[in-house]
């Protein structure tokens, strides 16, 4: 049924395009962008209770400023900002008060900036479905989030995207990713690791999946079809900055699947998985120049702030004063100060930012920190790696390490704020208080549901203000709670400032790193896969508390595979081949039974069965070519054994056009592989394929549409000219099919008899 939808959706998509075709060309020079200004997450809790995430200060600048600047930097003309009713007002107010961005402002770099309010939105998906309805989008547009900090130039990516889109309307989306290298990198997301399966030759994205240390098994399940690709990489070294270049079809896709909520976990993963249904292609643009990251949680907030201090985001640095009215100056020791700061002569400050009219008392030291406007910092205060927002008061002799203090927080004398503390708006810590270390405190004046919290003197001291923050019952987070319910939700890993897996019971099996294997000799591969299957999971390397990641750049042979399906494939192919080769009997039912058994044992997907079958017959045919001419070989391979054809028809293919195409493609791939495995001369491969297809056609296994669908399928020509040449050999057949009529075909048959 989902397939139907797919069909409809695709159709709708096409229709829309057709309709807009003209307009599109005209408006191609107008670049549009959509900002998702609401994440529907609470990873910034408790701060996000008071202010929408995209307005929270990052290096003393509201995040959305970076996002808008990025769009301006890339010449975007029209901007649509999506907010949920929850916080539209605030965001809108902010934009409205900014003489730079306000819609229609003389000095705005954008020709238009519109807010779209979706009252009942529950997820980003809802936004995009809504956007689809509105049909505001005329052509390629850039989809970003309100917490994006980036300086990458999109020109190249846009050009490529456009070129691809013009080549094939189904190429609907390009995902911008920043490579971040092998090693641990502060700017990679912790906890949840995205894995992109990419075909290097085309940069096409084949598969997307997220893993996190809390999940029981650390396997990526790759759709076997992926393995049809001669080469692909599993990239987990990437920073996903959430920049997508989309054609309007993308919105159509969202609409088709009403249940998608998240652009990656649901949409990207889903669309790629159902590729056969929607026929859409998604590509990646992996940049290694420039900066791009999302402050999607506090850890990223931390990392990006550090990157800004380290000028990795240049020119998005405080002393560029991109925000109207700022006048930061870069001074010695990487210190950036606004006008009117007061730094006592013997106060030391390094690698930090100090906001407008903030003061630093004598004997105090600030390092690797960002301090907002109008903060009062007393004498002999020590601040390290911390983020102090506006109008914070810190009294003498207090120490603050790696914490976030929101606006108007007040910390009394001789207090200690240890690593990871989060002090939300207006919290006040009484003098001489030492906040807890493990777990670090998250103090707020409000509770998760927004209701005021009753001050907890035991935490914030006598007549301090604020209490330990509890999230609304819906997503209860409490670091004291047992590991189980803590462990269930990976996002909980990202709710703290400091990433740590301590105290979590994490299964020690790492993401299975599949053997790298460049040769394509199928037999070799099969043995390879067997080896994988036999590998005892407990033997697999144990995860440290740090991230587990696949070796980011291992080239995969078309046949190496995630152990499960891989195993099935091997056994199945071997089984089938044996019975096909068998001299004594010409019965195929035994093989069929065995096969079905295997299938159940491994609950192999249809596609993997399809592939197995295709491969075995292709191989058989290939073997036979050594003695016979291709045509005969194909015929013998298919017909020697009674029921083989039937088996293929029932198990291997199936009625649908798409499935038939897949089978054809599988055959093609298999033969090509044979050629590469030197078990079949290149010349013959094509003819064999042609012969096979023809046979299958004449035995009603494949129908005209199926074969034609395969013929027109992009993948049939992807991956080397070998594929192409092999395919070409079938041109005659195809042409013949296209204007086929009964007699001819029957004649053909009779000839074969």
């Amino acid at each position: 049924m989902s397939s139907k939808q797919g069909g409809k959706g695709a159709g709708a998509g096409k229709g829309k395009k057709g309709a807009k075709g003209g307009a599109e060309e005209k408006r191609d020079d107008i670049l549009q962008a959509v900002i998702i200004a609401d994440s529907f997450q609470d990873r910034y809790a408790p701060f996000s209770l008071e202010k929408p995430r995209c307005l929270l200060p990052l290096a003393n600048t509201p995040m959305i400023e970076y996002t808008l600047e990025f769009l301006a930097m890339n010449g975007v003309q029209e901007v649509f900002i999506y907010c949920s009713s929850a916080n539209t007002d605030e965001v809108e107010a902010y934009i409205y008060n900014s003489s730079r961005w306000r819609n229609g402002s003389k000095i705005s770099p954008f020709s238009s900036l519109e807010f779209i309010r979706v009252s009942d939105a529950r997820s980003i998906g809802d936004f995009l479905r809504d956007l689809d309805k509105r049909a505001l989008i005329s052509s390629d547009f850039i989809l970003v989030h309100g917490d994006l900090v980036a300086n990458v130039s999109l020109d190249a990516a846009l050009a490529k995207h456009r070129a691809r889109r013009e080549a094939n309307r189904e190429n609907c989306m390009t995902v911008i990713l920043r490579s971040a290298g092998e090693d641990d990198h502060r700017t990679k997301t912790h906890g949840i690791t995205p894995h992109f399966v990419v075909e290097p030759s085309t940069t096409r994205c084949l598969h997307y999946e997220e893993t996190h240390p809390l999940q029981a098994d650390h396997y990526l399940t790759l759709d076997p079809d992926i393995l049809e690709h001669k080469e692909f990489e599993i990239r987990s070294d990437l920073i996903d900055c959430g920049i997508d270049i989309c054609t309007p079809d993308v919105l159509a896709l969202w609409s088709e699947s009403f249940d998608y909520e998240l652009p990656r976990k649901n949409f990207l993963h889903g669309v790629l998985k159902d590729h056969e249904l929607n026929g859409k292609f998604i590509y990646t643009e992996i940049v290694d120049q420039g900066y791009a990251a999302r402050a999607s949680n506090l850890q990223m907030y931390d990392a990006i702030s550090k990157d800004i201090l380290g000028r990795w985001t240049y020119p998005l640095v405080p002393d560029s004063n991109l925000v109207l009215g700022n006048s930061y100056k870069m001074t010695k020791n990487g210190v950036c100060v606004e006008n009117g700061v007061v730094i006592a002569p013997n106060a030391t400050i390094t690698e930090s930012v100090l906001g407008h009219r903030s003061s630093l008392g004598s004997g105090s030291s600030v390092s690797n920190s960002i301090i907002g406007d109008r903060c009062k910092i007393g004498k002999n205060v020590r601040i390290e790696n911390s983020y102090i927002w506006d109008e914070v008061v810190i009294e003498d002799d207090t120490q603050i390490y790696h914490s976030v203090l929101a606006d108007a927080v007040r910390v009394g004398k001789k207090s200690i704020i240890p690593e990871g503390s989060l002090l939300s708006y207006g919290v006040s810590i009484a003098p001489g208080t030492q906040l807890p270390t493990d777990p670090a405190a998250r103090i707020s004046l409000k509770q998760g549901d927004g209701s005021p919290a009753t001050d907890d003197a035991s935490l914030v001291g006598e007549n301090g203000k604020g209490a330990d923050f509890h999230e609304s019952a819906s997503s209860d987070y409490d670091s004291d709670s047992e590991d189980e319910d803590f462990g269930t939700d990976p996002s909980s890993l990202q709710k703290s400032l400091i990433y740590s897996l301590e105290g979590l019971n994490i299964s020690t099996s790492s993401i299975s790193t599949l053997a790298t294997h460049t040769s394509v000799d199928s037999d070799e591969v099969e043995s390879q896969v067997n080896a994988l299957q036999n590998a005892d999971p407990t033997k697999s390397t144990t995860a440290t508390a740090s991230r587990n990641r696949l070796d980011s750049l291992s080239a995969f042979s078309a046949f190496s595979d995630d152990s499960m399906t891989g195993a099935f494939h091997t056994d199945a192919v071997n089984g089938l081949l044996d019975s096909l080769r068998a001299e004594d009997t010409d019965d195929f039912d035994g093989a069929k039974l065995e096969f079905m058994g295997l299938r159940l044992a491994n609950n192999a997907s249809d596609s993997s069965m399809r592939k197995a079958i295709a491969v075995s017959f292709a191989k058989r045919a290939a073997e036979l070519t050594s003695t016979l001419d291709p045509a005969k070989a194909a015929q013998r391979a298919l017909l020697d054994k009674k029921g083989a054809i039937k088996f293929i028809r029932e198990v291997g293919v199936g009625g649908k056009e798409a499935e038939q195409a897949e089978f054809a493609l599988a055959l093609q791939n298999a033969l090509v592989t044979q050629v590469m495995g030197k078990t079949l001369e290149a010349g013959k491969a094509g003819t064999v394929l042609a012969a096979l297809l023809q046979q299958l056609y004449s035995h009603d296994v494949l129908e005209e549409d199926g074969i034609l669908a395969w013929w027109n399928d992009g993948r049939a020509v992807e991956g080397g000219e070998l594929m192409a040449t092999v395919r070409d050999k079938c041109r005659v057949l195809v042409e013949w099919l296209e204007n086929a009529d009964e007699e001819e075909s029957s004649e053909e048959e009779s000839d074969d008899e």
Partner: protein
Amino acid sequence: MAPLLAGYAPNLEKFLKTLKGQSLEASTEGLIALLKRRQIRGAEACAFATARVLLQVVAKSKWTDVDQLLANVQKVGARLTHAAPRELVIGNIVRRVLGLIRDEASEERNADNEGSLMDSVSDLQTLQPSAATATSSGSQRPGPNPIKPTLTPAASFVSKSLFNLLSVVDPAESFTTGSPVTGSSTPIQQNSSATALKSEVIDGIEEIMDELSQADDQIAGFADVQIHPGDHILAYQPTATVEKFLVRAASKRHFTALIASGTPSPKGPEAYASLKKKLAAAGVRTVHVMSGSYAAYLPKVSKVILPAHAVLANGAIIADGGAACVARAAREYSKPVIVLSGVYKLCPENSSEVEDPIELGDSSAYVPFTDGPLVDGVDVESAVSELVPADLVDMYITNLGPHTRDHLDDILADHYKVEDIDFPLQ
């Protein structure tokens, strides 16, 4: 398809295109944003963009008398300079335009001879410099041999000064006292038409823009004098200016050019391809020295050529990072260091006045962001530009000709009015 080829990202050309239709404010802010985002950078581009915007100010901004016009130019100018504090040429262009206005204004006033004792003072102050800019603007017109500025304007530039202890009036006070004498520095329009002034000033600004576009050619005009047969010329990170210079020399002289790319360019050996090609065409041998350091080569080098981002009043220059090292090495082997710079890059600021001339650029320019440990642990400081102390430079070649350090004062005097020297501090 067009936008595709050009790309969407804004840049100087795109900006200039927009100027026509836009409101002045929009243009100003537009430029400011581009400057801040470094999407317009480099002396030439900044100078040109500034001139264009100031032209808009004169043409579009609302003003009825010279004081207002000056104020408007100063206001916009100040915003631009603050947008890119390290692009000193912006300030220069603003000063040039201010001076221009003052000249035109005073001429206007002389036209109708109200030359009373009162504002007569200003005549003398302004007349001679105006003569000066006359000569220099004369030299700005295209022509093989621009006239070298005479001493007179320089003298007149200071003549006001020595006596002002005893003089009847001096600007310092006239600013404070609201008497009509204030006209001395910014004469109030009595009955001369603003429109006339406007067109005059606009012409002047266009002349400045001509000067910008012709500077390189004029500088190149002095090449063959400085470069001799058999020389080994080390050109540090040659710019368009240097390229013209060398190529021109190549047409007359047979020398060897060592192209010094202080840092690996993304283009690799292909960098400076056009320069190499042109020189090769002229039969000049080029060696592309792929090194960060040059002390090793200097014994063989006969002259070092540095392109300047800006030349400061005391002769120090701001140049690409690494230039100071080359200059030092040159001094070590006492080889002359020649700085190429259009006059418009000559700033009245003194090296000690300039707010920290070392611009820290993009850390990822040379350090891969993909190197997690490095990114996290190490304070990367990649200097885009740095200050080459005055004592390391031997000669400056501008579109007016070759100069020594002591000369710079005169040129400054020719091009900037005393009143504007302090811009934008005032």
